């Protein structure tokens, strides 16, 4: 006996899908699952067969049976629920969807991702270096000898650990610039580094937090000049702040760069006309400069052959400037009030 189970299935399926009305559904039922339906007929046919054939066909018939029963149950369910809701069907569809519960990534994570995305396209490689660090990498090797007053500007946390005769005290690094020396000492040139890391300074008020994030860019190669720093800044600012934002370099002073700059962008609030939130239309973004030859030397790089530029800015600050979010107290970022976090 030949039996084309598959064609019965597809025929049944087709008919079922067309049965829009309960009447035609009943017709379908009696044709396939009813007392004189196809399934019954097949079952009784099978019982007449020889043992070997019976086994094989029986299995197929069983499979068909469960297929038909499930299909019928399915359509019956959907038909009845539609029928039940029909009077308010249109309204029902205007109700809000039942959303799965989705959490929130922290603003800092979101900012880090955006920053990383821009720089990765320029071939910068993201790294991370120790947050608890030797004085040597955070200060001394950055052209800041022990008694230098420039150190005072970093309100540094010291860790209660013995001093190393060569590397000095243990500190919480107050900036990501410790990564400059560590990156150079890897001995792999050229360098395009993006170091995004946690830092700490001994300060806490509405504009400062004792723990914060910085991102540090470092490019070292032969013939790197200020024009390259400007090119990278232009790319960053165009992509991060938009094409209407202009920038400028101002002379400044940092121990680990020479020349040193402060980078300003046009104020997002007044568009560069000048207002009470900015300085004559400009807002400070952060510091930058050409890597000081002493720093290159400390990193084992010959300043007569190689040159480079570096910049290190606050992740939180850049984020606030880009989004125009007026968070009245930056410490909220670390308080983890869920009513704050849920807004982002």
């Amino acid at each position, binding site marked *: 006996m030949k039996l084309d189970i598959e064609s019965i299935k597809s025929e049944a399926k087709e008919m079922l899908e067309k049965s829009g009305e309960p009447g035609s559904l009943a017709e379908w039922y009696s044709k396939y699952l009813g007392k004189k339906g196809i399934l019954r007929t097949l079952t009784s046919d099978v019982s007449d067969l020889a043992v070997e054939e019976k086994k094989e066909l029986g299995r197929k018939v069983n499979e068909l049976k469960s297929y038909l029963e499930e299909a019928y149950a399915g359509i019956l369910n959907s038909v009845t629920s539609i029928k039940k809701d029909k009077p308010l069907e249109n309204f029902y569809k205007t109700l809000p969807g039942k959303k799965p519960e989705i959490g929130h990534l922290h603003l800092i994570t979101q900012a880090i991702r955006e920053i990383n995305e821009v720089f990765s396209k320029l071939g910068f490689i993201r790294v991370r270096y120790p*947050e608890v660090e030797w004085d040597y990498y955070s200060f001394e090797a950055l052209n800041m000898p022990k008694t230098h007053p420039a150190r005072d500007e970093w309100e540094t*946390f010291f860790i209660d650990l013995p001093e190393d005769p060569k590397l000095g005290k243990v500190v919480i690094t107050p900036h990501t610039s410790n990564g400059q020396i560590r990156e150079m000492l890897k001995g792999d040139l050229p360098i395009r580094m993006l170091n995004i890391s946690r830092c700490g300074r001994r300060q806490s008020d509405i504009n400062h937090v004792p723990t914060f994030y910085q991102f540090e860019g470092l490019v070292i190669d032969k013939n790197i*000049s200020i024009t390259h720093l*400007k090119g990278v800044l232009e790319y960053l600012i165009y992509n991060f702040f938009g094409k209407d934002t202009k920038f400028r370099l101002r002379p400044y002073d940092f121990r680990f760069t020479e020349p040193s*700059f402060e980078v300003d962008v046009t104020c997002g609030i007044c568009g560069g006309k000048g207002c009470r939130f900015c300085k004559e239309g400009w807002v400070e973004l952060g510091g930058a400069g050409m890597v*000081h030859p002493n720093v290159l030397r400390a990193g084992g790089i010959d300043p007569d052959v190689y040159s480079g530029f570096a910049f290190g800015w606050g992740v939180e600050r850049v984020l606030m400037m880009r989004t125009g979010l007026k968070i009245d107290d930056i410490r909220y970022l670390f308080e983890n009030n869920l009513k704050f976090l*849920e807004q982002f």
Partner: protein
Amino acid sequence: MNVLIPFSWLKDYVKTNAGIRDVAKALSEHSFSVEKIIDDDVLEIEVTPNRGDGLSVLGIARELAAVLPVKGFSAEWLKKAFTVKKYSGKDKLKVTISDNSLVPRFSAAVIDKVKVKESPVLIKERLSKVGIRAINNVVDVTNYYMIELGQPMHAFDYDKIAGHEMIVRESKKGEEIVTLDAVKRILPEGVIVIEDGDGRLIDLCGIMGAQNSEVDENTTKVLLFVQVYDPVRIRKSSMSLGHRTEAALRFEKGVDFESVIPSLQTAVGMLTELSGGEVSSELIDLTGTVYTKKHIKIDYEKINKIAGTVIKKDFVNATLSSLGFVIKGNDVYVPSWRYDDIEIIEDLAEEVIRIYGYQKLPNELPGGTLPHHAKMGTFALEDKAKDFLKHMGFFECYNYSAVPGSMAGHGALKVKNPLNADLEFLRVSLTPKLLDVLNKNKGYSETVKLFELSSVYLSKKGDLPDQPYMLGMTVRGVDFLVFKGIVEALFEELRVAGDFGFEITEHPGGVLSCELPFDKLVDAAGGGRVYSPLTGFNSIKEDITIIVGDATSFSEIISAVSNTDVRVNKVGFKDMYEDALTLSIEFLDRAKQITSEETKVIRDGIIKNLDSKYGIKLKA
């Protein structure tokens, strides 16, 4: 440090057709940032710490003279060169300097027949514009020239100096002095002071004078005093005394040693004119330190390399000259007012390029070869884990690196100078703070899920602490197995290979936590995928319910079931009710179609196996 410099005062030095806004813009772009313009005349200027020379009208005027022409404005220098005058007179001062490094240069002159009175309007107005209160003609002259020339000065009542004798020395711990502001100050060791013939302290050098030698309305003889002090000692003293005066802030940045005598004589000239007095001593000028002229070899090519563009030799030379550098052949001599700041060719390059204009340099992306990429695993996996947890309903938290003692945990490192008691120790675990956050957000919702991905700091002998990245997760109102399932699903998402053990800790109030060493997770993650060929045969799925005891673990049962027969394709947990565990088992024969007769045989084997190994029986 910010200084106030009136544009009207600058015009004593520079004649220009530029307006105040042009001046502000030129300074900001080429020299120092102008933060504010007050009353259309006073510039508030941020002078960087390396540029002590910029803390004066003269210093800013010098910058303007170099910068304005580049901006297309005129700038004519009005002041004439200074010639040192000879003084004579019978008044003497006996000076003993205990250590030349305290006062590299000591200068003074006595003026007799002084009438102390009010200063003229111009002086009072100018002082008031820069925020200094006018007192009398003597004191005002010292303040006036501190602002104009950048040289802090002091005036003593000559007759109040016992024995007309000064001993400059370092203080001993606990010595006392009452300064001009009537505050009694108890000194630490190492502060530069002056003792007079009676052993009284009469000056807190470089910071503030003493009340016992101050000029008052009865003063007739004034000792005018201009010095160079050791900047490091001044800074240390003024900081430890908590007394940051205008004078101290200038001294600690270094003052121009060559302008000491011109400044003193300019002030003497003004004072004699205003007070009707006359010089009654010789010019006292003691130099303990010899300054050698500093010079740097010029390298035009290097300047161009740093700039990334060609700046003509003529422009380089003209710029350096306009800033006071003297070029002789290949050597550039540094002006005395930039002595501490200019050391190497890169410093000269900065001078030239900043005046040339950073704005004029082209913007170019660096070319050359790309750096070698290290393995990118960690950050990509961090993002993946964070996204996964976010979609599972977690809030991401960021907490401070330091915690209070109550949350520190065993072996936590101590911060030597914590900001407050809440930030005394470096955390060794993320969990305590996450539990705290959970607790602080009690009213937010019944179900709260939190995570943080940050480093902890684990003490290590003789080295920096280990700083592994941890993934801390803390939940409230989540079923144990649901939480466990999230962790397991995270492992699947990260394709963590093998059996990555983890522990869930139960806390009061239905709170659960789990902290994973993320670095290790990264090592185990990204496991290779294995392909099992698809088979055309169907599997048969069956449930069995067995009665289990507390002595056996689920994984033991699973392996007993799986190991019974190769045709046991999958075993999964379905349900648990009291001690009845329901497993769903999938049977598959990859060589042929499996039958229900065959599965029955395998199932019997499974039950036998479970019984003999663990005494586990089928539910009746």
